[in-house]
């Protein structure tokens, strides 16, 4: 009964309670997911189980930006030549990377994992489709696509986020949209974006897995007029989390490029995640993402339209546009 053991016992006493409560909660949650899967197998549509405010708040307390920057620092450390092959081979095996398509297949060429992650592809590895007006800007998995309705965009089936929260206020378009269309004409934010009669607003979400090629390209012929950078969280954006956290893409750090294509408004948004917190746009040297400090809910605008360039940055379909970087 020494004071030390009494103190230790006092500290250990809540542990079983915490474990039992946590275990019970996880068990209940897993049973619910199991039941949903069984119902889906029977063809019964099941509402996705979306996290509540408390769960999102709890998730957001995880210092994802700090972890992301630490992960980035770690992957800038130059690896000794003898260690490169085993480290990159483990990454290749874990994430199913296809090195035959890489422009440089020799693993010793990459000084660190950050460089390996930014690897380019052989030019002929990805022929750009000529017969369609919109192509995929990156390798990945199609999470969701379709028409935008009632200013809500689906990140995955059944889980939506607000178009206006995602893009921010419609101030970037003063220079794009002709003066005749003013704000009160449009019945909603969505109508503000659609500049031509008879058009609709469409969206497509491409998820890039850790083993995918992480550069992205121009999805069509368009001119980029404006960039809006939203600093934010760096929660994971894998499909499981996208099914669980509503408005996930509005919480995370992201860079919105907007402009015009032949049919009117066009935008591409790169959304960061825990392991890939940094976003680079090749023609935008000013952009700095995943900075240590930022004020919540803030964003910063940058226009590519200047006195001697009234159009913005012209991008051809398939042209190199940017990349995600570790950390």
């Amino acid at each position, binding site marked *: 009964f020494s004071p030390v053991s009494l103190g230790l016992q006092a500290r250990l006493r809540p542990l079983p309670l915490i474990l039992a409560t946590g275990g019970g909660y996880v068990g209940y949650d897993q049973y619910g997911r199991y039941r949903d899967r069984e119902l889906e197998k029977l063809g019964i549509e099941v509402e996705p189980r979306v996290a509540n405010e408390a769960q999102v708040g709890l998730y957001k307390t995880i210092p994802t930006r700090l972890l992301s920057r630490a992960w980035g620092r770690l992957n800038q450390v130059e690896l000794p030549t003898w260690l490169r092959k085993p480290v990159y081979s483990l990454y290749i095996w874990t994430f199913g990377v296809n090195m035959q398509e890489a422009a440089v297949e020799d693993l010793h060429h990459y000084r660190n994992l950050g460089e390996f992650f930014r690897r380019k592809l052989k030019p002929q590895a*990805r*022929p750009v*489709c000529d*017969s*369609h*007006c*919109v*192509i*995929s*800007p*990156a*390798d*990945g*998995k*199609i999470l*969701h*696509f379709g028409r*935008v309705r009632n200013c809500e*965009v689906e990140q*995955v089936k059944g889980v939506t986020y607000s*178009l206006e929260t*995602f*893009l921010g206020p419609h101030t970037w378009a003063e220079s794009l949209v002709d003066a005749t269309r003013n704000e009160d004409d449009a019945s909603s934010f969505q109508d503000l*974006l*659609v*500049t*031509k009669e*008879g*058009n*609709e*607003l*469409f*969206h*497509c*979400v*491409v*998820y*890039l897995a850790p083993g995918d090629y992480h*550069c*992205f*390209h121009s*999805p*069509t012929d368009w001119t980029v007029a404006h960039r809006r950078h939203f600093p934010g969280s760096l929660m994971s*954006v894998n499909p499981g989390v*996208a099914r669980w956290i509503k408005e996930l*893409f509005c919480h995370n750090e992201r860079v919105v490029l907007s402009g015009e*294509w032949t*049919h*009117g*408004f*066009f*935008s*591409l*948004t*790169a*959304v*960061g*995640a825990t392991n890939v917190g940094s*976003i680079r746009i090749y023609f935008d040297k000013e952009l700095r993402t995943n900075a240590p400090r930022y004020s919540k809910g803030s964003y910063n605008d940058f226009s590519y339209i200047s006195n001697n360039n009234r159009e913005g940055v012209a991008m051809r379909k398939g042209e190199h546009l940017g990349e*995600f970087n570790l950390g």
Partner: protein
Amino acid sequence: STIVLLFEAPRDFAFNLKAGQKIRYGEPLGSM
């Protein structure tokens, strides 16, 4: 990481995709 495309197009624009499918840069997403 994720890339979100948002764009206006004529009503008859159609995606030739399936949710959950793998896709590679350069492959078609859809057309009018």
